[in-house]
């Protein structure tokens, strides 16, 4: 399986994702934001970080970079595109995913482990998942998902919510919402479910010595689904 990770100026989880993808069997290539063409890929990942310093609005300027035209085409042709954290912010700014990510409700950067509940397994990211609830790591300042009333209805009608923040038993409630996200949304799909954006960082949980290993389960499953 071939994957590509895009490095924007200010990306800082690009290496981390590269390490994770390779660990679980992807042949990964790093792609520079100023390049025009994507290498042949089964999966394109927009990594976390602070593209363009998170200035103006997170992800807004990265969404205008050259490579994003190719990413757009790739996604429109059904290619799998996954955005993690800042990558998620870039995907909403580029219009590939609905909604926006506002500043965290309590106005503070949050770095900690959270639980997320998988909402929709009918897609290549979570199909045949052994788990319903993952323990993932979050680290962000703007993860507060928001969209208009019409949009949220559409998202729900199309079953586009990928992940909810929950407690360890899968209860979705205010206590388990770390940043004020609408309906506890932690990740969403596009209509066709080939584009996924999520705030948590599975790549930080791929080793028993790190925060946990649920990321390993996620990536193993992902590569199997793409095969």
């Amino acid at each position, binding site marked *: 399986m071939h994957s590509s990770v895009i490095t924007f100026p200010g990306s800082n989880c690009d290496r981390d994702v590269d390490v994770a993808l390779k660990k679980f069997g992807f042949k990964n290539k790093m792609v520079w934001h100023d390049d025009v063409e994507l290498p042949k890929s089964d999966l394109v990942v927009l990594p976390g970080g602070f593209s363009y310093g998170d200035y103006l609005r997170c992800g*807004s300027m990265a969404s205008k970079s050259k490579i994003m035209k190719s990413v757009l085409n790739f996604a429109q042709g059904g290619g799998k595109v996954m955005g993690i954290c800042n990558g998620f912010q870039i995907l909403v700014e580029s219009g590939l995913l609905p*909604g926006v990510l506002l500043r965290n409700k309590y106005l503070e950067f949050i770095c900690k482990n959270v639980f997320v509940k998988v909402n929709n397994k009918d897609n290549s990211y979570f199909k045949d998942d052994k788990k319903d609830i993952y323990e993932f790591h979050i680290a962000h300042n703007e993860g507060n998902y*928001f969209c208009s009333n019409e949009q949220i209805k559409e998202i729900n009608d199309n079953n586009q919510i990928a992940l909810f923040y929950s407690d360890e038993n899968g209860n979705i409630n205010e206590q388990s919402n770390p940043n004020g996200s609408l309906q506890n949304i932690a990740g969403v799909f596009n209509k066709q479910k080939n584009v996924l954006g999520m705030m948590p960082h599975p790549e930080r949980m791929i080793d028993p010595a790190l925060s946990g290993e649920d990321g390993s389960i996620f990536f193993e499953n992902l590569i199997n689904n793409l095969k």
Partner: protein
Amino acid sequence: MKISVVITLKKDVLDPQGKVIHQTLDGMGFEDINEVRQGKYFEIDTKENDKKKAEAKVDEMCKKLLTNLVIEDFKIIGSQ
């Protein structure tokens, strides 16, 4: 020509920053406040000296980059 633009959050979008500032001001003894809303302000200095043209350009910049129309509105408030 220098164009000034103000970008504000749409009415129904929560403004947590504004809320916290409101609370803080309240705690400092400014108790007469109904609401505080925070927005962004830009000054764009362009080579274009025709007011209409300059404003049209800035309008385009706002639509293409400076605002996210899902949550924000913009208004050109001055040109000089």
